[in-house]
């Protein structure tokens, strides 16, 4: 079977600063990593390949730096990767992102199954997977906890609210892996030494390679969502030592000054 797993490069820490002028995340100079939810999707895919045979490719949309996560996926066991990258794709919201991924995946060719993670740690919308399936016109299931190939269909165990369901889904299809369903394997040193930069295993797809050439469907132009403002929640913790005598009234004064009482 041919599996495609969608992955994204996200900031390596949750302490990300926001540009006070543009209101966007400052990604420069911040360590990046693969979205942790995508690692679970990749692990699910690698387990399916181990059982059923076939190939697994990862797909990511992003700038050139995202090649790093494609390589990481290859070191974990993926056969190859595709980076969908073009300046025209920048500033995309959920709709434009899922449409761009759809266009990129169409350019790649045949697949039996697409797996996405539950959500990303930077966008947190948890909608790209389902929208991608809609654009591709294939069936999909979200919150999948287990998946197994049985008699030519994919049997999925998935969770909606407090209920666990089991359903068969015809392939080709898309599933969004739930969170916490497995412990993803670690990238291999041996594979890193063997594949190095993995140039022969990674393909880059740009705007020129995709069928729909209407620029209004991509990037900022293709995004109906307009973000008014992004701000960091205030999480400053201050510690103040109060010593000496008359501690109660001193404490009261501090609390009053900060309007806690």
């Amino acid at each position: 079977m041919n599996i495609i797993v969608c992955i994204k490069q996200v900031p390596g820490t949750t302490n990300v600063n926001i540009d006070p002028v543009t209101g966007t995340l400052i990604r420069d100079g911040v360590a990046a990593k693969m979205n942790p939810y995508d690692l679970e999707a990749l692990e699910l895919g690698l387990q399916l390949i181990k059982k059923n045979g076939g190939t697994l490719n990862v797909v990511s949309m992003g700038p050139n730096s995202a090649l790093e996560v494609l390589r990481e996926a290859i070191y974990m066991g993926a056969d190859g990767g595709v980076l969908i990258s073009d300046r025209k794709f920048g500033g995309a919201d959920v709709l434009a992102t899922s449409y761009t991924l759809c266009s990129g995946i169409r350019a790649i060719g045949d697949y039996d199954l697409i797996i996405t993670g539950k959500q990303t740690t930077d966008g947190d919308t948890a909608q790209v997977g389902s929208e991608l399936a809609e654009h591709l016109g294939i069936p999909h299931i979200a919150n999948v906890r287990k998946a197994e190939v049985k008699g030519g269909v994919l049997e999925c165990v998935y969770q909606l609210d407090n209920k666990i369901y089991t359903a068969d889904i015809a392939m080709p299809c898309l599933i969004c892996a739930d969170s916490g369903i497995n412990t993803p394997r670690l990238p291999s040193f041996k594979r890193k030494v063997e594949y190095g930069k993995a140039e022969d295993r990674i393909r880059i797809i740009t705007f020129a390679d995709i069928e729909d050439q209407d620029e209004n469907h991509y990037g900022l132009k293709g995004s109906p969502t307009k973000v008014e403002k992004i701000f960091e929640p205030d999480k400053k913790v201050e510690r103040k030592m109060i010593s000496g005598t008359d501690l109660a009234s001193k404490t009261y004064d501090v609390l009053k000054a900060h309007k806690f009482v």
Partner: protein
Amino acid sequence: MYKKTDSEDILYLKSIIPSGRILVGKEISRDYAHDELGGIEKLPDVLINAVSEEEIAKVMAYAYEKEIPVVARGSGTDLVGAAVALEGGIMICTKLMNHIKELDEANLTVTVEPGVLLMDLQAYVEERDYFYPPDPGEKSATIGGNISTNAGGMRAVKYGVTRDYVRGLRVVLPDGSIEKIGGKVVKNSSGYDLKDLIIGSEGTLCIITEATLKILPKPAFSVSMLLPFLTIEKAIEAVPEIIRSKASLTAIEYMSLDTIISAEDFLGKKFPDTNYEAYILLTFDGNSMEEIEKEYTKVAQLCIDMGAIDGYFIDTDERKKSVWNARGAFLEAIKASTDLMDECDVVVPKNRVADFIKYSHEVAKQVGLRIPSFGHAGDGNLHIYLCKDGMEEKVWEEKTKKAFDLLYARAREYGGMVSGEHGIGYAKKVYLNRQVGERQIALMQGIKKVFDPKNILNPGKVI
């Protein structure tokens, strides 16, 4: 004979400690009767949750005058019975003294009360881009406890142990007097180093009420690597070669599959790889990724030449969590896998680690006990556990005695020591005696007598 606390003593203690923070007799929870060793239980007569040095000084002055035994206690996570009130009397718990008093960025020190938890201290300094390197597995231990046992942990290979990070102490002596020992200075050749005597003294010389600790700038990058091997022997045989490679490593831990499986069962979480019999876990840190990459490439290649199946990268928070959480839970996991266990925390010269582990397997067979182990292969400190697994009490006692005798004798033969980081407490006294001999024990007893002429502080421990 010590004075038994009576109603007059309790009345006095209640006059200096507000109600709610002083508990007497049946008010005291059974939790305070034992530490994490198991097998030894004794409740204190009075439990005081102190909030200040002054309170401790007043309690000690009174106890000294009346000759009432006193035991200081932090989180009670020790493994040798050191925090158990063998003679009853007063227990002073320092857990409420949990304030971080000062971060001195010019001197690179942090000053804390003794009840600050290791995990809180580490989080506090790391948020500010500093680093407190001692890293014992038990993160809910207090700093006072860490100093009292000279706790080591996983980063000792590169950074040393708690002793290397204590600059100054404030302590209350058995007679209630307060002393400031050491300070923020880096160098100190001013007479006998009392600070270093107090570190590791397990609450037998004085009670620590404040500690000034050295901190470092936080390394910018840290990467761990998990290396699977087909057998535990192959894994530990690689360790001396890793050390000989001159690579700059922060941690070299070894773990066997059965211990990992116990941790999986205990945590309800899967470890990233359980396909092989044994694993070596390495950590590299530094200020550039290039530097780290150079180091891990050299070591990983060496390990593969020595029989490692591969090297798996642990380079993100999630991956670190999935591996180090399991590593941190090994002790609890082994504990949960049996009805009772006892432990051996020997430290041997680094080049004898492999031999000692192999010997522990022989002892397990010879004595007929399950003896899982894990440990700090990079510094020679091993944690070896004897599991009761439902056997009869008498048989268990005989078997543990036999196993301990064999293990400690072999450690002595290798030039090792009884305890690497857990201390002597009550449980390992006989082995310390055998190890260091009468002359050294007499020296230790002399020191104890100078500090505590009435022997009221933590009696029955260490010597």
